[in-house]
């Protein structure tokens, strides 16, 4: 009883959250979401970056960001906002195109991995027994596969050169740790009595998983997606590095790589590597900040008011 927040709940004048709408939890979450500065800041930043990635390339005259258009190794000025590379490529054009490719590979890879991880994790954790044994074996097998080597072979064998397919393969290999984490969480949540109570209310398995168990880990699920999203971007950058990235376009990872390859750091060409590095950091960082805000939105105990 010592955990009670209110020492005299029977007699306390009911301050029953008058500002919150009493309707569905969905509208209530929205109510707190639009009042949460962390979530707003994070989301706004992500939306701005996404908009730059989507709209930016459309506003450019030249469709090919890798074309040699300007003076070589020029610092940023009015014409070339982010300067040019050693070869005279427009860094701004590369940046907006790279942002688009990076978002694409992150979303495709992260979403595919998140979906597989959730299906496997929830199923194994909730059902247990033989289902768990089999799914756990599958998870462990994929977990110990050297993902980069497998991706290398697949890419080399199939000659994959599009960003979306790269994201697909990354998604298919990066889900195991997330599946294990979800499984463990589900194991602990399914023995709670509110799950029994939901069953006594006639709820079926999937309803219990998605309406009782998943809401308890919604911020965790979102964090998992962010990590998978960031991970996909990093794996894509690694693939780009070993020459198995998209040959046609450009990505932030590819930009960083060529900046490193052509000694931009040593030559003091900060405008070459800072934009892509800052872009990746800003995307993942903004998602993290949004996640902290989401935790407060989903978990009533963390709300300040």
């Amino acid at each position, binding site marked *: *009883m010592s955990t009670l927040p209110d020492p005299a709940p029977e007699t306390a004048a009911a301050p029953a959250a008058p500002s919150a709408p009493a309707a569905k*939890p969905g509208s209530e979450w929205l109510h707190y979401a639009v009042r949460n500065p962390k979530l707003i800041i994070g989301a706004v930043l992500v939306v701005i970056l996404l908009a730059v990635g989507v709209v930016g390339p459309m506003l450019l005259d030249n469709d090919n960001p890798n074309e040699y258009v300007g003076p070589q190794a020029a610092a940023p000025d009015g014409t070339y906002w982010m300067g040019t590379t050693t070869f005279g490529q427009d860094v701004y054009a590369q940046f907006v195109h790279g942002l688009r490719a990076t978002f694409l590979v992150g979303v495709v890879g992260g979403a595919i991995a998140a979906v597989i991880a959730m299906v496997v994790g929830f199923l194994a954790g909730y059902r247990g027994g033989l289902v768990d044994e089999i799914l756990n074996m599958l998870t462990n097998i994929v977990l110990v596969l050297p993902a980069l080597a497998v991706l290398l072979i697949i890419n080399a064998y199939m000659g994959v050169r599009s960003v979306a397919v790269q994201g697909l393969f990354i998604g298919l290999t990066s889900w195991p740790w997330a599946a294990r984490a979800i499984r463990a969480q589900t194991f602990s949540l399914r023995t709670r009595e*509110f799950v029994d109570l939901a*069953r006594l*209310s006639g709820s079926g398995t999937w309803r219990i998983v998605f309406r009782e168990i998943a809401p308890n880990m919604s911020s965790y699920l979102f964090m998992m997606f962010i990590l998978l999203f960031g991970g996909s971007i990093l794996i894509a950058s690694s693939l780009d590095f070993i020459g198995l990235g998209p040959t046609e376009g450009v990505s932030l990872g590819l930009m960083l790589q060529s900046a490193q390859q052509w000694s931009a750091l040593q030559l003091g060409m900060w405008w070459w590597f800072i934009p892509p590095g800052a872009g990746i950091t800003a995307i993942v960082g903004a998602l993290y900040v949004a996640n902290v805000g989401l935790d407060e939105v*989903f978990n009533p105990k963390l709300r300040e008011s």
Partner: protein
Amino acid sequence: MLTLDRVTKTFRAGAFGGGSVTAVDRVSFEAAPGELVSLIGESGSGKSTIGRMVLGLTGVSAGSLTLDGEQVRPGKDFYRRVQGVFQDPFSCYNPVFKADRVFALVRRAYHPGVSDKEWADRVEKAVRDVRLDPGQVLGRYPHQLSGGQLQRLLIARALLLDLRFLVADEITSMLDASTRIDVLNLLAGLKERGLGVLYITHDLSLGTYLAEKTVVLRKGRVVERGDTQKVFGNPLHPYTRTLLAAVPRLNQPWTSAEPVEACAYHEGGARDTDLHETEPGHFVACAGLPDCGRTSA
């Protein structure tokens, strides 16, 4: 009428599921409508497992468990008639949702056609029936309510259904003395409405307060069962006697209980889990003590 006939539950245990633990061993008893049966035993005696089996939350390994002649089949129809209230009210509520969502779940499953207005009236009535003020408890989160309020809300939830049987698993263990009596009186009211109640407890005095019948469990087996007055008035099994001797009394200081030397009953073929009917409505198992005539022979 709830009927348990030699109900057994075995759990897999140990490394690689090689071993097994028998949590409930050939337990038989009945609970008629309007009757409160209290199930008494120490921690780990299998009380809660029996409750979960009655609710269909845990499968039965052997034996038969029937309600009104039908096998327990977990599902919507079954839970319309049989409900449970559990020990720990804090864990019965999903912490991310408001406490009154337990009512919304009942409405979604069993009363989808009821209008908002009528449902609100029904909920308010049920909440008042458990002596809570709807204004203080509805629309709040579980962590904003006390254990007693949450526990009573769960009983109110059960009242919204067309119940025939209620499993109450240690429902008063988290409550203070005055709330406890309120909840017990609620159970008495339910009983009068013709509900059968399985009241699981380790508290003997609460068991005697309401129960028509008492079942004493030890290590998964029934050691003594029968009409409450007979079991507590004339305890025959040494374990029951020890239990009764261990109850603190208000007007007496503590004295150590006298050890029970021998099995009070060891005639008439009480072997294993077979119970012997010593008088009408009073069954007892042989304790298996060294000087028990039958089992040592």
